[in-house]
């Protein structure tokens, strides 16, 4: 790709960006949030059209104006946000748009199935073709996305942040798959924020910042630190300073909790734990092992079947999110757009979502618009939510990272005794992650209890004082952070026994 320039309205997302990928290699693209990585790939895939620039595939210039063009050129893309039709089966999703037909118009599922099974074997994929997307794990969904590309005979595969939702094991598997694909002559372009993955998987890396090329390096010649610096333009601290503090009383406890999902399958099975003031309690685990249900039960979004949840001695089992809030619990939800923000509300309105009914924001049911705005102004400044003075901006118009900052600002400003953070840094760049981690540890240092549920093992390890590993609805073990390392926890996450404790 040469001289790619792309405007969104007046905003220049890409400015004469160059990208050269060698056939049969894995090439990673690195950049902060909003650097333009996705945009660049979407242009390559024909989903967006660029304002100027040229694209060469196997040496010849090509006009790619629709995804169809790209598909015909052997380009496949796995999007950052999965492009899967949830109520459809895996099989239907794979063939969609390129269906095999027997009699014209009538789908021949059998033939398609044979073809996919062949591919799955070749790449050591293990997928259930008849499962519905909404019922399978994110890791599985990812494979479906890759299979979609392979099914269409992709020679060049673009993966946009494929690992941000995967467990360490799944990431390893993905990297294996990538390598086996390269062996089969495919070319892969991968976008990721995780430097370790780049080091592990790629041959080359192109770094972009604010829509411009920064550098293109061979992986053999570089290091994680150098890449981080290239990306952000300054030195990055990877570790978070945590004071050593004495923890306080147990203020939050879960006792023999059992929760079922919508279909009546037990997802959380007889779990008990307590969190002390001034402690970060991390829950690690592979997605789909009950994190979702555990969180929903604690947040009173889902009925607990048996067991109880207490906050500061008050039984809050099966009450309501309101009750939870009144008892000093605040949440940083996993999906900021779905559960975190009311996107059509202004930032100021969003900043008081839980406490709108409280003084000083309202009295006798009447809002104090000035106070609401003032609150936002303060939080925007304190938490560096951008753009500046966005009090009256629609929350939906903020960037992902800034939306997250707004949510964190709101949660912390509620001064909760227990902060529940679910995947708080999902999809954020290292700079933003650093900020969020600091904020969480800051809360702990002030003596608050924190429940951290994350699929990012690294994050859990870095932040937590104690770590529980959720496997198949039960805690495989609860470890002290001092005793935990990636291997041990990884093993537990995969269902292995903890020998030392036994």
């Amino acid at each position: 790709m040469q001289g790619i320039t792309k405007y969104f309205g007046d905003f220049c997302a890409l400015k004469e960006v160059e990208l050269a990928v060698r056939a049969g290699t894995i090439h990673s693209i690195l950049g902060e949030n909003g650097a333009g990585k996705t945009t660049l790939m979407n242009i390559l895939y024909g989903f967006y059209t660029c304002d100027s620039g040229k694209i060469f595939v196997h040496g010849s210039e090509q006009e790619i104006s629709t995804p169809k063009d790209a598909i015909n050129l052997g380009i496949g893309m796995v999007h950052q946000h999965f492009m899967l039709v949830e109520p459809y089966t895996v099989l239907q999703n794979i063939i969609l748009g390129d269906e095999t037909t027997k009699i014209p118009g009538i789908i021949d599922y059998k033939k398609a199935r044979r073809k996919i099974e062949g591919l799955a074997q070749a790449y050591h994929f293990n997928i259930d073709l008849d499962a519905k997307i909404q019922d399978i794990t994110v890791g599985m969904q990812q494979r479906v996305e890759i299979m979609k590309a392979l099914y269409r005979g992709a020679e060049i595969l673009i993966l946009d942040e494929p690992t941000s939702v995967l467990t360490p094991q799944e990431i390893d598997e993905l990297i294996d798959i990538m390598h086996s694909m390269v062996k089969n002559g495919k070319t892969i372009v991968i976008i990721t924020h995780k430097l370790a993955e780049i080091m592990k998987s790629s041959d080359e890396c192109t770094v972009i910042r604010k829509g411009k090329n920064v550098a293109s390096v061979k992986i053999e010649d570089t290091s994680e630190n150098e890449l981080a610096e290239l990306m952000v333009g300054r030195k990055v601290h990877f570790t978070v300073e945590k004071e050593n503090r004495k923890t306080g009383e147990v203020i939050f406890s879960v006792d023999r909790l059992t929760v079922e999902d919508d279909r009546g399958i037990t997802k959380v099975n007889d779990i008990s734990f307590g969190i002390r003031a001034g402690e970060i309690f991390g829950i690690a685990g592979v997605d789909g092992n009950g994190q979702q249900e555990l969180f929903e039960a604690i947040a009173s979004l889902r009925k607990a079947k048996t067991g109880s949840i207490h906050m500061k001695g008050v039984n809050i089992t099966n009450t309501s999110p309101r009750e939870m809030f009144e008892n000093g619990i605040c949440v940083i939800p996993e999906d900021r757009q779905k559960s975190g923000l009311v996107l059509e509300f202004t930032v100021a309105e969003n900043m008081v979502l839980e406490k709108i009914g409280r003084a000083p924001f309202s009295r006798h049911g009447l809002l104090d618009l000035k106070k609401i705005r003032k609150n936002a102004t303060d939080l925007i400044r304190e938490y560096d939510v951008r753009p500046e003075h966005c009090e009256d901006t629609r929350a939906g118009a903020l960037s992902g990272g800034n939306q997250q900052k707004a949510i964190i600002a709101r949660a912390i400003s509620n001064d909760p005794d227990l902060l529940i953070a679910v995947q708080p840094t999902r999809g954020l760049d290292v700079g933003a992650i650093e900020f969020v981690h600091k904020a969480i540890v800051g809360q702990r240092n002030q003596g608050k209890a924190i429940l951290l549920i994350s699929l990012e093992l690294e994050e859990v390890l870095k932040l937590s004082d104690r770590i529980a590993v959720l496997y198949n609805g039960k805690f495989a073990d609860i470890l002290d952070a001092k005793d935990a390392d990636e291997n041990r926890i990884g093993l537990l996450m995969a269902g292995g026994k903890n020998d030392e404790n036994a």
Partner: protein
Amino acid sequence: MDNIGIIISITLMYATPLILAALGGIISELSGITNIGIEGMMVIGAFAGAAVGYFSGNPWIGLLCAAGAGGLLALMHAIACVKFNANQIISGVALNLIGLGLSLFLSRIFFDGATQTLPVPSKLPKISLGGGISLDSTVIIALCLVVFVWFYLYRMRGGLRLRAIGEHPAAADTLGINVYLFRYLAVIVSGLLAGMGGAAMSLAVVSSFTPIVISGHGYIALAAVIFGRWNPVGSSLACILFGFAQALVVILGGGEIAIPSQILAMLPYILTIAVLMLLKGKTAAPRASGVPYIKGSR
């Protein structure tokens, strides 16, 4: 029992215009475009069917033109919703007004100032199945269409694509499916079907158009779409349930039971709510229904 034949006939007579319109509603909604303008499309279909049927003397030509008229109105809806990302409910409400207004206005022009047409010289033929069951040809057409639409949606390539567009248009787009074209076609087809539904009233149930020949049928068809969970078979069953309740009212009303006829008249509506309460279903609305698809927006 002869009565059973009659009940079946009445049930299907009531259900047919609703089934046709509901099929239209399903196709449009599955593509992601809410079509509340079905009522207006039925009205204009009823008018065009009867008027053309009257002037041409051939009810089949009338039926075709009814579909065409409904399709034209639907095209307006499609332009609004697909091209201009309009609020689909607002556009639908507008089309209901335009459909009714235009029908009456045209009727006055072509029928000597009257808001109703003269009876068509020949109606769509009836088919007698024996046992007291005698069905309008529209009933047969509607039932065949139910089967076809079901087959199309769940067995054919276009159906797979159409439903994907209503669930996740961006996903379909990335696979090279033309979301806009599909939506245009789906909305137009919904208008064709709704227009036919209107004509089923004015060319089969009765043989002329009056301003009240369609009164609320479109909304009941929409209710059936939701009731039947966006499935052609389910929605048709919902229409048939409604028709059955009406048949029941007719049969009960003839007996010497002392139920006031106003109370009896409520039966179909109460029954619908009651059945829905018992089913207590989660809705299965297409996820992107009612949401304009703007390429590349997040």
